[in-house]
């Protein structure tokens, strides 16, 4: 059921205050895991850069001569304003920082749902990535290999070799509503490395998402929440369903990125099946209070 704007705003306030409250109370800030930086501002490019700087900078993640895979969400033939694909400006920041840190090559690639050429072009991602010097690569069915995620739900599944044959993997999802998963953020974004009959993974979706994220390592996660599709996701299309949140979240912990983003969206992370499943796998904390989140507004 689509969320009413009023509930959305209420929840948003509630959970964002829940983010800040614990730090004020003594004895409540027992947090674990790497830092989660949440930066708000008017320029998606600037806030992305700042968020990465806050968690220690790209130098800590990318080494010289690394081949870096940047995996945005390019799933749909939609424009930036429709907020179904990752903001190209956020992507530009990541690519530039990766090169500045000495990356030999940066590849941008996703297994799209709509026709790849249309998605790459219309989202503005292909043009932006090329301009920033990255290689724009398309998925090629002939490059699928079987990969074992060692999960109870998701075991062996075909994955595009390109995603496995890189030194660093940077996950750059967009935060948006998703009919069957509730939300799609970084963990769900990993569906884009898979080939095969992906629809089959929608049965126990939460469990599959958790297995997928558990069986694949991300070196950096940067969640684009500049424009957020709040209803009728993951495709959307209507501008009235999109809200400006002007935020990005950076961390090296994929589950914590999703927990923080879910709270930002205005949802209780514990109510999302895939986060609950991840929590059951001991991937991380499910309460924002137990995650070291640092917020900044620029």
């Amino acid at each position, binding site marked *: 059921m689509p969320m009413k704007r009023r509930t959305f705003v209420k929840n948003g306030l509630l959970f964002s205050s829940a983010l800040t409250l614990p730090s004020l109370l003594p004895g409540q800030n027992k947090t674990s895991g790497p830092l989660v930086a949440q930066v708000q501002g008017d320029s998606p490019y600037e806030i992305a850069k700042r968020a990465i700087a806050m968690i220690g900078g790209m130098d800590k993640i990318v080494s010289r001569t690394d081949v870096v895979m940047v995996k945005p969400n390019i799933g749909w*033939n*939609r424009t930036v304003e429709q907020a179904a694909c990752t903001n190209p400006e956020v992507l530009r920041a990541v690519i530039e920082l990766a090169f500045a840190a000495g990356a030999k090559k940066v590849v941008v690639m996703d297994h799209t*749902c*709509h*026709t*790849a*050429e*249309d998605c790459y072009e*219309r989202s503005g991602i292909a043009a932006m990535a090329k301009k920033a010097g990255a290689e724009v690569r*398309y998925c*090629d*069915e*002939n*490059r699928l290999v079987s990969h074992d995620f060692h999960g109870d739900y998701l075991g062996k599944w075909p994955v595009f070799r390109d995603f496995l044959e890189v030194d660093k993997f940077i996950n750059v999802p967009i935060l948006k509503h*998703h*009919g*069957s998963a509730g939300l799609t953020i970084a963990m769900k974004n990993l569906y884009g490395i898979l080939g095969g*009959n*992906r*629809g*089959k993974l*929608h*049965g*126990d*979706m939460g469990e599959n998402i958790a297995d997928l994220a558990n069986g694949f390592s991300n070196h950096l996660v940067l969640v684009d929440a500049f424009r957020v599709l709040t209803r*009728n996701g*993951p*495709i*959307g*299309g*209507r501008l009235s*369903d999109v809200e400006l949140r002007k935020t990005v979240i950076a961390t090296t912990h994929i589950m914590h990125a999703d927990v923080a983003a879910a709270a930002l969206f205005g949802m209780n992370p514990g109510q999302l099946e895939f986060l609950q499943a991840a929590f059951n796998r001991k991937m991380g904390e499910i309460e924002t209070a137990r995650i070291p989140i640092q917020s900044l507004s620029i």
Partner: protein
Amino acid sequence: MNAKKGKQWQRLRAASQVLFSILFFFLLLISGRIAVESLPHTGAFFYIDPLNLWVNALAGPFLRPFLLALVPLVLTLVLGRFFCGWICPFGALQQFFTWLGSRRVKKKIASHHGALRWKYILLIVLLVASLFATQWLGWLDPFSLLTRSSSVTLFPGLNFLLQHALESGANSQSLGSRIIKPLYDFSRAWLLSGTQRTFLLSFVIGAIFFGLLLLNLYRRRFFCNYLCPLGALYGWLAKYSLFRLHVNPNCTQCNACAGHCTYYGGPFTDYQKSECLVCMNCVKDCPVAAIDVRWQLPKAGQVPALAPRRRQILSAVGCGLVAAALPQIAAGKKTKGHPFIRPPGAAAEKDFLKKCIRCGACMQACPTNAIQPALLQAGLDGLWTPLLAPSCGYCEYECVRCTRVCPTHALASLALEEKKQFKIGTAVINRSTCYTYADGHNCGVCEEHCPVPEKAIRLREVELYNFRGKLKKVKQVYVVPDLCIGCGICENVCPRTDAPAIVVGAEEEQREAFY
């Protein structure tokens, strides 16, 4: 005119053929790639085809670009069948295969005037049938035939070969990849389609296409001489053309001029203005410069007339009437609906069959490979008309390419906003196979992909007993028929591997309203 000059003319002709062929294939190739605004230009070759002018005049409403078809008609009255010899890209292909087989083709053959008349008979059959709403001209019209064959077999076939040849090389770490990678990238950008395109029964269209090409090894320019209805039209006009070849007194009667004549005639023994493609081979072959080009008004009896005999014409008209009636008395003509859907903008079925020239340009333009040639689904007269087959691809919400490339507006040109509202059909869930009904577990892939912003497929949480007999909460999918536009992406992505549990049918299709 001497042999040297003849050779220059011959080269010029070949250059013109190559140029127009490149232009033709270029326009066709880019029709699926370039921005929608500039797409109408890819139909240029269809607009200079008088047979399409005829189709359009019969089906209406009249489309002004078809006035261009008058240009080659008028020019033929001056230059003869120059169009076949100098411009037609399918003719150029015939010429190429004729050249390939030139070693083994007998230089002299018994009189084949009878066979040369076939095309006139065929033209009459097709024209008569078209008067009665059985529109089959596109089956043999060279542009329709070549476009259809290229879209459905030639390009996908080349795509398969190129992809396999280049891909492994481009992705390897070897030295060779330095050379192959740019080649691959170029192909990927301009030639290859992202995913291999496949077509229903493409081998039928392929067999006809390559069969017609191979027949050139048996007889020179087989299609052009014996089958082409457009060639027949131009041939009939060319009889009255100003252009003629004249044999001057230098002639030593050596008959060298017949050596490479496309219709095995030549100006000396058997000159047929209606069959001469102005290829200039004979002028080049003449050792004594005995052939001149003359421009003069044709006089009666000056040129032997090769035309179908009276009884042949009568039989052709008869055949045309039979061809016209047969498909129209099939049972399918009277049923309420039909078991298929058409691409967006399609005219009501009756009009659609009259307007469509079966060229398959829409099949080339469709980015998702959703548009497929019909075999007999749409009746005998619907052969090779475009169907939208969600099992093969889906109608992309943000795309109007097929409606822009259709030269005859069988698919009406739609603005993007119009197209988003155009109801192709309606999705129906098969509750005995859908996971969220039959198995009692979540799925929702169709809901996720539904492109309608308000969602024509929605989820509702219900409690039901799953196949283990356990009471479970399931997010069940359901269709909102009023919102569904029938794009078919739900059917395309349904994860069931036996048969999709949601299918799009013609129910409530918008075009019925035009009946």
